[in-house]
């Protein structure tokens, strides 16, 4: 029994690493500048970066809050791996099919915030301190909104299990008749994955990388990998909630197996999110909070009302 669990954990970590590698490749392809942008070299460039980071000598900042600082990347990676535990890639390709999988997914994004806050706080520097506060502002911004955005599919499928929700979409994808909910989910997904335009805890040009400012070597690799995997997972859940999961489009559906459709949709969403980030100016954290609570949250109430009426009309 223990061996099966270990095997499952190893499998999850392996495919999660591969998936985050794919995310990094996509990021390179969409990047505005830098090595390997929009060329074949993008396929290998993240590997080169990872190799360089893994071999680099870690440099510790001056007098960090040791345990917090050094544990933060591990905590972030562990929380992301826990989130991967409940994401389905097929009717049976899921590590843990619980009846409250969707809820668990949202909740375990919280420890990621804790890890980022610890990373910033433990670094014993001004950039890190600001990034710590900004990271905490993220959970205030995204958690409620994300919860309301996923309520639409949960209401339509009458379940919090991601497998049930996907199976409820074998005819109509929820994204088709809940476009507002889909858009709100994507906005809160950007907030929850610290991607532009909501990337102030990591803002490279503004506070020198924020929470990752003081990391180097393998720890930085782990932190970046966790963040890339986080984006992938958030996109995967978006695909499962709104794009029909492993069900292909009507005509070309049988061409690919279910998990391949899920991968295609997930990476399409990842690319879309990265592209949106490229095209949008960065939100300050206070702007993000105001946007989240004054615009997105009321819109999600509207969305809930519309979805409820549609469900009632459908009977």
């Amino acid at each position, binding site marked *: 029994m223990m061996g099966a669990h270990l095997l499952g954990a190893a499998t999850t970590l392996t495919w999660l690493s591969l998936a985050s590698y794919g995310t990094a490749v996509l990021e390179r392809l969409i990047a505005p500048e830098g090595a390997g942008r929009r060329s074949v070299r993008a396929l290998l460039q993240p590997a080169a970066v990872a190799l360089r980071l893994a071999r680099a000598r870690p440099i510790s900042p001056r007098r960090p809050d040791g345990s917090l600082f050094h544990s933060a990347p591990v905590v972030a990676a562990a929380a992301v791996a826990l989130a991967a535990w409940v994401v389905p890639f097929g009717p049976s390709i899921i590590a843990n099919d619980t009846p409250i999988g969707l809820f668990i997914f949202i909740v375990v994004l919280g420890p990621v915030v804790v890890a980022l806050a610890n990373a910033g706080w433990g670094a014993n520097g001004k950039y890190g301190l600001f990034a710590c506060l900004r990271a905490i502002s993220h*959970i*205030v911004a995204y958690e409620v909104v994300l919860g309301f955005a996923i309520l639409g599919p949960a209401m339509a499928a009458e379940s919090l299990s991601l497998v049930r929700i996907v199976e409820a979409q074998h005819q109509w994808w929820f994204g088709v008749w809940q476009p507002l909910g889909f858009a709100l989910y994507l906005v809160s997904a950007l907030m929850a994955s610290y991607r532009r335009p909501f990337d102030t805890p990591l803002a490279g040009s503004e506070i020198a990388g924020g929470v990752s400012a003081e990391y180097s070597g393998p720890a930085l690799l782990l932190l970046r990998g966790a963040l890339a995997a986080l984006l992938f997972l958030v996109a995967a859940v978006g695909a499962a909630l709104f794009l029909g999961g492993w069900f292909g489009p009507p005509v070309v559906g049988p061409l690919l197996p279910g998990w391949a459709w899920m991968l295609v949709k997930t990476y399409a969403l990842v690319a879309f999110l990265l592209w949106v980030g490229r095209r949008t100016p960065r939100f300050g954290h206070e702007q993000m909070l105001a946007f989240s609570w004054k615009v997105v949250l009321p819109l999600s109430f509207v969305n809930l009302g519309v979805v409820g009426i549609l469900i009632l009309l459908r009977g």
Partner: protein
Amino acid sequence: MKDETVFAIILTQWAIFLALAGLTVAGAATMLLTMSMYRAGLFLMVSFVAAAGLFFVLGADLLGIIQVMMSVSGMLIMMAFMVMLMIDPGGEMMWDMKRQMRLPGLGALSMSMPRRPAPVPSSAPPDDVGAAQSDVARRSDALTSGASPEGTSYTCPMHPEVQMPTAGECPKCGMDLVPDERVSAQPAQESGDGMNTMTAMSPAAHYDMMVAMAMSTEQLPWALVAGLLTAILLGVLVIQTPWPTVPVSATADATSAVGELLLSRYMMAFEGAAMLILAGIAGAVILGRRERAPEPNQGTASAALPPAVQHTMLEETTMTHHDEKQSGKGEWTCPMHPEVRSPTPGACPKCGMELVPAESPKQRGNEGTRR
């Protein structure tokens, strides 16, 4: 199911239960002991999350996940406020000093600093901390070797340059002064950051200084006593429960039975809390809508005027009301002297300004409050 399997499951459950329960208690205890408010929040979060793990073990996973969500986001927000709102977030300064002096241990109780540190070779001290320590060592050496100390004076733990003949408060920071143990041969200005004074302090002076600086630890002994009493009480309750209990036989399903009981009882509490929060939001929205400019009244504009003028003004405004009721608008008034009313345009008899058409008092009041 075979007996050995059931036994193994029960044993595993007990092991996990004990580990999580220990983590819950340890998290709460460390929260009391740590000097750093940030860490205190983290430890409390760990304690809550471990308690949520207990719910998971009992099979009440929805309850557990709700607990994780509430404690993680709540504690994070609390930590953010503590960091943002306090200059010294509940002892963060002390915590930082402790780190800078490389003192081991995580709690306030391990704050006892070396009174006489080991002598450091004076050639090329490794860094500033080493320098401070060797400085202290030299001074301690001087103290023990009989250098004449100056007459009893008092100094501030943080501002060693302050020298007072009597006990009292530091004129710079308001802290209680402590007896100066420094030797006269050592100029006060040399110990720039006050670290030397701290290392040369007695444990009691130390604790007083910690309390004076850390804001949150004065209640520490009481908190420890209260925590101990609570632990004893809980132990007594577990051993000798005064209310009727349901005997649950030790089977593999027993935990989930307890979990279902928990879920059925506590979900009501959670729903009640959610209702309260919703009611609070609704109340805030309603109150927020009320929070407009106050009803314009005629007295506000005249509050600064002498009573006699106010009186005439009141009369005139009431008169204006009558006029408006009878003949509508059509009065002229001075922009500077609203008590002046004239049926025809012209110059103000008081200041000579041109009269302007009079507005109704209500409009005036509105403009005043909007501004």
